[in-house]
């Protein structure tokens, strides 16, 4: 009997990794999980964790991060349907978890394929965070930034940044930035300063990487604008718009690469003379 049992184990034990390998081969090594959320209300979930809300929030935050990463990297549809309820549950369980508001807002606001492309919801999350943590200048700063960067609402952004500047511990430049936004109505330099601040404040990770990408987009947009101006200059000189961007080199107006910060060649519309980030580039974003 014992010998038979040992034989059975000997045969079946290697079958476990073998069957897993077969499963991976057919379903793909990395695959998005079919995510299901049984409880959608933070208050409902809170009732399930009496006295353990903190650790519940940690678990839901881990699930939020894993869900976002899974959808972003492996899902085909990238709908991020559960992102908002997961963030809401996390912050209801632990209203002081500042990071959930800040990262959650980025996950929701960034456009596809990076995020869910729902900036209004991202701003709602930050506004809720600012209401629950009235002394957090960082949440108000982000709320102001997002109003400008995603909704182009410079006046509202300036007002919120002014509020943030009045909070204890807030850096002095927030008030300057608010004044600049109000005076100029916002421009690319303001956007650059905001992303630079987010880059400097973030530790290595998704938030920093996103800010780095945004700065590279702004660099490339600056270069594209400069090349557009050179195209116009060449047009005035020879009496017609160039057919190809390389003519700038031939005319001696530009010696550098005709590529964006990711090394992808700029797009050029000969009919309008406009140079822009190519749709093939990871830096391309819908306007």
């Amino acid at each position, binding site marked *: 009997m014992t010998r038979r049992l040992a034989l059975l184990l000997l045969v079946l034990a290697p079958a476990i990794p073998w069957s897993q390998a077969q499963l991976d081969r057919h379903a793909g090594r990395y695959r998005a999980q079919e995510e299901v959320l049984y409880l959608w209300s933070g208050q409902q979930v809170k009732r399930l964790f009496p006295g353990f809300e*903190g*650790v519940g929030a940690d678990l839901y935050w881990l699930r939020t*991060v894993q869900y976002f990463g899974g959808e972003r990297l492996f899902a085909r549809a990238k709908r991020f349907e559960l992102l908002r309820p997961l963030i809401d549950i996390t912050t209801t369980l632990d209203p002081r978890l500042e*990071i959930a508001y800040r990262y959650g807002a980025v996950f929701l606001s960034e456009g596809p394929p990076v995020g869910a492309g729902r900036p209004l919801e991202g701003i709602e999350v930050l506004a809720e965070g600012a209401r629950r943590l009235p002394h957090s200048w960082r949440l108000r700063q982000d709320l102001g930034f997002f109003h400008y960067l995603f909704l182009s609402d410079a006046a509202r952004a300036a007002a919120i940044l002014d509020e943030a500047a009045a909070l204890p511990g807030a850096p002095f430049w927030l008030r300057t930035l608010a004044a600049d936004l109000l005076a100029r109505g916002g421009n690319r330099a303001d956007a650059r300063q905001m992303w630079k601040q987010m880059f400097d404040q973030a530790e290595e990770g998704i938030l920093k990487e996103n800010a780095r990408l945004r700065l590279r987009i702004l660099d490339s947009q600056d270069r594209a604008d400069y090349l557009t101006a050179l195209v116009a200059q060449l047009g005035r000189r020879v009496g017609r718009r160039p057919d190809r961007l390389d003519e700038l080199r031939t005319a001696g107006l530009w010696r550098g690469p005709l590529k964006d910060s990711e090394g992808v060649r700029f797009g050029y519309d000969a009919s309008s003379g406009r140079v822009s980030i190519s749709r093939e580039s990871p830096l391309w974003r819908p306007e």
Partner: protein
Amino acid sequence: MIRILSVAANTFRETVRERVLYNLVFFALLMTLSGLLLGQLSIRQDEKIIKDLGLAAMDLFGTLIAVFIGVGLVSKEIERRSLYPLLAKPLTRGEFFIGKFAGLVFTLFVNLGLMTAGLYVTLVATGRRPDPLLLAAVYPIFLGLLLVVAFAMLFSTVSSSSALASVFTVGTVVAGRFTDVIRNMREVAPGVPPWLVDGLYAILPNFRNFDFKDRVAYGDPVGAGVLAWVTVYAAVYVTVVVALGLAAFRSRDFQ
């Protein structure tokens, strides 16, 4: 006093031989150590997650130990009939009951100490400061566990089986963790008479009083005054429940 200490020492020796105790402590330490892994996945929340998991493990597994060992302390002696020769000795029922309580309290103290050490080791292993503020959350957890043990012993004395006593104890602990819901009951059910709400809120053990985990995980100080009042609350409540248990134990007919 010496007789109470003898019973307590025997109870301690007896409880540390329980297999369920080792299982629960093992899982508590495993849960604390899992903070090492989970923290890595959390984006900058590793320290908070380690603290949250460690303190939650102490609270959860401490409660389980208190319930499952607590209900067996008296009922097992009755079921095994080992109580009769004990009571035939120069040992009063009161000394036996309080000695049993003290023995399990000491067991919980040792276990909680072990889990606290596990939490500090995990923090140090990840290069974090061994935050002494954590003790401001561990101490109230210990006080809450004393109350759980008191209830477990009371229910094991008055009920006919250990299973029933476990259900009553767990029910009381869960109800005690929902005291905020009871307090605000009239907001969702305005028809409930206020005296009933106030009465329930006053009578039920408020286990929320012993919960400082979130505050400590965020590094907020816990005032000595608050801890002193929590101690008073626990002392009064534990004394009342132990006295009820003792009264029930004294009046019980073991024939």
